[in-house]
């Protein structure tokens, strides 16, 4: 399989469970090392499976991941969660890091929770901190793996709105998002990739995929979704 993404694109990845979507995204952050193949960001090219630790770290600074399970540092406050990478990885001073962090926390609307610990936050708030933490690192590419699927229904919207805002304000940020929230993906993505075991099924603009899908597999997948939405 072969996937090319341009700067500033918002790519939505959809597909059935177990298709390998998460694995693809995790490869883009080198949390999973692919057995073969290469990843190229701008002019830097990394060829799997032999990637030196030093290169891995350089590479990870290009991308930034928002996790399904939030994965906040539980022993650190909201502010410390966001400054952590700035201080240890980017070697910024504490003051500088905090300034950046405050801006990002402000952007996700959590200024009043800045000294809270993750345990004191709702799921939606946690995920917004996760987004702020990722953005503070000023990555070229933001990766989101089902950022709302661990959330109760009533908390999904606050996170989706936050993501939408990020996409709208940071035009140069490349975003790759996996989500089962099809209507959201349809709204926010500039391109949609349909994924299944075996690789990419088809890709195209949201209108192409949702209204005139070419492949049988895509149709099937979209239909199974609609059925589920109706029965529950």
């Amino acid at each position, binding site marked *: 399989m072969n996937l090319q993404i341009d700067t500033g694109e918002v790519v939505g990845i959809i597909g059935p469970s177990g298709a390998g979507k998460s694995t693809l995204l995790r490869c*883009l952050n080198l949390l999973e090392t692919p057995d073969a193949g290469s990843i190229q960001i701008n002019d830097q090219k990394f060829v799997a499976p032999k990637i030196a630790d030093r290169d891995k770290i350089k590479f990870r600074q290009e991308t930034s991941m928002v996790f399904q399970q939030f994965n906040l540092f539980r022993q650190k406050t909201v502010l410390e969660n966001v400054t952590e990478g700035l201080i240890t990885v980017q070697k910024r001073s504490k003051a500088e890091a905090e300034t950046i962090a405050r801006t990002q926390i402000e952007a996700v609307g959590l200024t009043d929770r800045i000294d809270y610990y993750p345990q004191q936050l709702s799921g939606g708030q946690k995920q917004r901190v996760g987004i702020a933490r990722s953005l503070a690192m000023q990555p070229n590419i933001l990766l989101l793996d089902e950022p709302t699927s661990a959330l109760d229904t009533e908390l999904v919207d606050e996170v989706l709105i936050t993501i939408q805002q990020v996409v709208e304000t940071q035009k140069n940020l490349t975003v790759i998002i996996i989500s089962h929230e099809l209507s959201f993906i349809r709204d926010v993505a500039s391109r949609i990739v349909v994924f299944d075991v075996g690789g990419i099924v088809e890709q195209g603009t949201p209108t192409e995929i949702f209204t005139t899908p070419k492949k049988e597999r895509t149709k099937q997948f979209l239909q199974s979704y609609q059925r589920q939405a109706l029965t529950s």
Partner: protein
Amino acid sequence: MPKLIDFPLIFTNIPRLLKALPVTLEITFFAMIFGLILGLLLAVIKINKIPVLSQISAVFVSFIRGTPLLVQLYISYYAVPILLKYINYYNHTNFNVNAVPALLFVLIAFSLNEAAYNSENIRAALLSVDRGEIEAAQSLGMTKWQVLKRVTIPNATVVALPTLGNAFIGLMKNTSLAFVASVVDMTAQGQILAGSNYRYFEVYLSLAIIYWIMTIITEQILKLLEKRLTIFQKATQVAAPASTRRFWQRSRLEVAVHDQHSTSHEAVQSPNRI
């Protein structure tokens, strides 16, 4: 040069030391079993916060944890007779504690020690048992005791096994302290042997060999036991689809993110942004 180490002696010592193995094992097993029973009792007392008993047991556990085992042995072996003597003296009674074999004092001291140390592990294990299973048992109409016996203890055993195994191994080596109360375990037997030929170093090496082997055997038994007890876990669930895995292994991943627009895909403006 004098013969500093008598190497053959290290091995010829072993059969003579093994004569005292039964005593070591006797103390170990007895203390472990009674320690478990009493430890369970202490744990249940603490969990249920039974008024007076839980305070007493807290002090008891604190004392045992807080003082060396040697001191506890001393107290059980020396203090009881002295106490009796004082009683005899002031009450003109004639209790005689010498009829009680020394081993009994040792067994009691070791059991109490094990109980105190185990009680915390047992408590943690009991608390780790899934409430749901307990509720299921209760809702079937089991009595408290049945729930404990049929659900709580079997589940807790799996959790507590490794720690209890360690306690057992520790106990096996600690029985040597019983010598202050004239009970001759394997280490004491070693001291007696060395006392006649002045070859302490060789005896300690022999003991090291014996204890090491015993520990390895115990560990193997524990492993087997654990395998038995956790058979319900090992049974594999439906395996993850092998096909997917295989696909990933064979396929090549080619992803590129470019600063320039690539030819193949143009960024498409989403038609209905909110």
